[in-house]
């Protein structure tokens, strides 16, 4: 995660993995309404929404109806909705799931820019998300945080000189993750 340095209103912004939007609403009204629901004063919602849309690169689509947006754009609307009230922490649950590679790339760029100004907690199963976005990595297993460190520290858990490991079809990160989870299971047994 990259640390942020601001906070206003409700401290957390959350984007679930699956969320819906009202297709007939305009993008601006959707984000502004989300700002209001998250505590922004009614008279400030328009400005807050405009700022959030600028952060996710959708200012030009402010007056577009949601149903006309692509999947990636809808995901960015969701992020804007979670940002509009200027939370100190933004929590994203699988934000790139279901997106094509181009949409994932653009979304990561948006998240990276956001992460420069506030803390972002990203939940993902995609290694590329972690590699390109995250300062620190946490691994949850059985409801417990079993690893908290950098990507380098995680991949250091495996021995690359092992012949079996070298023949594996996974990346170093994936093998390290697998080794960690497998080791936890053995310890329980």
């Amino acid at each position, binding site marked *: 995660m990259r640390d942020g340095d601001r906070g206003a209103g*409700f401290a957390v912004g959350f984007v679930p993995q699956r969320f819906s939007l009202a297709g007939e*609403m305009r993008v601006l*009204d959707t984000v502004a309404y989300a700002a209001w629901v998250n505590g922004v004063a009614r008279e400030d919602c328009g400005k807050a929404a405009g700022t959030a849309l600028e952060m996710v690169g959708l200012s030009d689509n402010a007056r577009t109806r949601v149903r006309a947006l692509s999947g990636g754009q809808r995901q960015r609307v969701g992020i804007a909705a979670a940002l509009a009230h200027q939370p100190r922490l933004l929590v994203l649950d699988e934000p790139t799931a279901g997106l094509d590679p181009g949409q994932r790339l653009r979304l990561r760029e948006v998240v990276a820019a956001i992460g420069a100004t506030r803390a972002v907690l990203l939940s993902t199963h995609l290694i590329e998300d972690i590699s390109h976005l995250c300062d620190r990595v946490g691994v949850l297993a059985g409801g417990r945080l079993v690893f908290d460190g950098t990507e380098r520290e995680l991949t250091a858990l495996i021995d690359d000189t092992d012949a079996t490991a070298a023949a594996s079809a996974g990346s170093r990160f994936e093998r390290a993750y697998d080794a960690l989870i497998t080791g936890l299971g053995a310890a329980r047994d």
Partner: protein
Amino acid sequence: MTDPVLRRLWPLGPWPLLLPAAAIAAAAVLATTAMRSWPYQEWVRTSAEFHQQNAFAGPIAAAAATYYAGRLTRPDRVFALPSAPRAGRDSARRHLGLLAVTFTLAYLVGMAPLTAVTVEHAEHGGPDPLPIATGLLGLWASIAVGYLIGVVGRGALWAPISFVAVFAVVVLGTGGDTFSALVPVLHVAPAAGRVEALPFTVYRVAFFLLVAVAAVVAATAVLRRHRTRHRPVRAMAPLLVPVVLAVPAVVSTPALFAVEQDVQRVCRTQRGIEHCVHAAHRSRLPVMEQATAAVLTAYGDDTSGRVRRVYDESLRWATAVDDAASGNTEAHQDVVWVAVQPMSPTDHTGREVAWLLAGATACAARSDTTDEERALTVELALWLQNGGRAASSGPLSGIAPHALRDWMSAHRTGLDTCVLTAADLPG
């Protein structure tokens, strides 16, 4: 750079509010068109229309509220997450505030033409606030229930179901008194001389208010607690309160109407006959007098005291109450009661006086009369109502008016006991 401008009636914009509002106003205007054409108005009827027009306004408002809730409150909406600070009470208050204000204004706009006509043409009294309040509270209860259905149903597709459900509630009241205390629309409307009973109206005000509050509380609780795969059933507990309150009203049906207190009447005596009307019908007094005079002219004027008092039917209940209070229940036995009502008026026909003099009233009171005996009295009554002119065919055609008049005068006893037939006619 200027701040972005949000839509009016945000967040869904104007159409989900203005279209149903237009429908509500149009329904009220169209449904009261006939009333506005009446020759005169009664405030008691106009006041009652404020709850009678819930017949379509309520279902429309409920369906629109369901649509609104279904579009905005689903727990998977990015702007409706239960964890948000304004999820629950604040969101519900905003939505319901928009719905209630818009639809109430629309309803009042729809009722405005009838109200304006009543202001101009009513002859007595003023608006009755409690029946009007039951109408507005019935509308708000429909909005609240519709909103709750949308919150629980989680989709705008529940809107037609809301419409049908609320309309079914409306229909419940049309079958009789049983559910009248629980539904905004009554199966019968009050009229001059009788008003909606105070306990009945107060109960309805309280009940509709309770339904609205319970539905709002339940919806708010659901909004704070629902999750994508979880519907908080216990949040619906507030709905038990109006259900419990409804039981006494169903088990023991209250009286819908009461006799109007301190009835104002306008009376005048002409040609030895006293005519009295309710103050709300004062313009009908000369009409009744003329009708009675026309019948008496056809009859021959000498009624031998059989017609001494001709009263507006609207005075009947108050008169009966006064007679009972005075201990003389037969004080007004000789009154000819005339139906005086603004819709399809018949008070200009002299029908009731004609029926009395022709013996038709007596025939109707007996169960053992023959068809021939009844038919003769009806023919005679129509002859009197028509100013002594007979139809081109029938038993009275060909009989000179003076001859028929003399015959009726000579056969009063027979007519009053309903024992004569066409065979007894002269010629």
